[in-house]
């Protein structure tokens, strides 16, 4: 998988591309932590439009990002989640903790 990041006006956008599993999660988290340290964003958007698959490793990653943001008083949310990642999110119950918006198309 790939993580592309962009930053504007206090908002960090993380675009996740490809498949997010345990094999990919550690490297993705390292990259995301580094980008967060560089920008110290106020908001963090996790854009999942191009994420075609994730398992519970994705849940752990989302929670970790939300925790890192909360440490500096910021917040994180998920945008454009496709159908399969959304089913995993629903089953995990983290939509009670984090705002999730879905993709217009799946």
């Amino acid at each position: 998988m790939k993580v592309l990041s962009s930053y504007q006006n206090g908002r960090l956008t993380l675009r996740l591309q490809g498949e997010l599993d345990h094999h990919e999660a550690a490297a993705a988290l390292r990259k995301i932590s580094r980008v967060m340290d560089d920008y110290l964003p106020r908001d963090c958007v996790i854009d999942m439009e191009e994420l075609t698959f994730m398992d519970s490793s994705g849940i752990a990653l989302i929670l970790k990002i939300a925790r890192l943001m909360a440490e500096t008083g910021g917040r994180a949310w998920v945008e454009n989640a496709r159908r399969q990642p959304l089913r995993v999110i629903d089953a995990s119950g983290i939509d009670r903790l984090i705002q999730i918006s879905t993709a217009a198309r799946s």
Partner: protein
Amino acid sequence: MKQRNYIKMEFPARSVNEGFARAAAAAFAAQMDPTMEELGDIRTAVSEAVTNAIVHAYPDSAGPVQMRLRILEGDLLEIMVRDRGRGIPDVKQAMEPMYTTGGEERGGMGFTIMGSFMDSLRVRSAVGRGTSVTMKKRIKTKAGE
């Protein structure tokens, strides 16, 4: 129960094989003509089961992980993932949501996901001898849709 088709495979407990295992499972299940959603559920459940074996079964080595898929009568897909690793002392506790002994890249949701995406989930384990996870899912026929 009569089986109509099956595959068996074995690979070392290396995380690079997680993607291969779910792709192989999806390719095998495709002959049952599942919906996109069912196929996504199968890939997800396999990913969780195989990742558990890779993360937990063999602390110091990349021991063997076996995966078997069977198509049974009644459009039933059975997936078994088995290892010969250290085993789980308390299966009931391990299956509780958020329980984890893995690193921070695992959230303890694996069994919860497997259970909610498949129709049945059975975990057998013996300390020092290994663990097997067996899951079944009925693939609904599309006829009449």
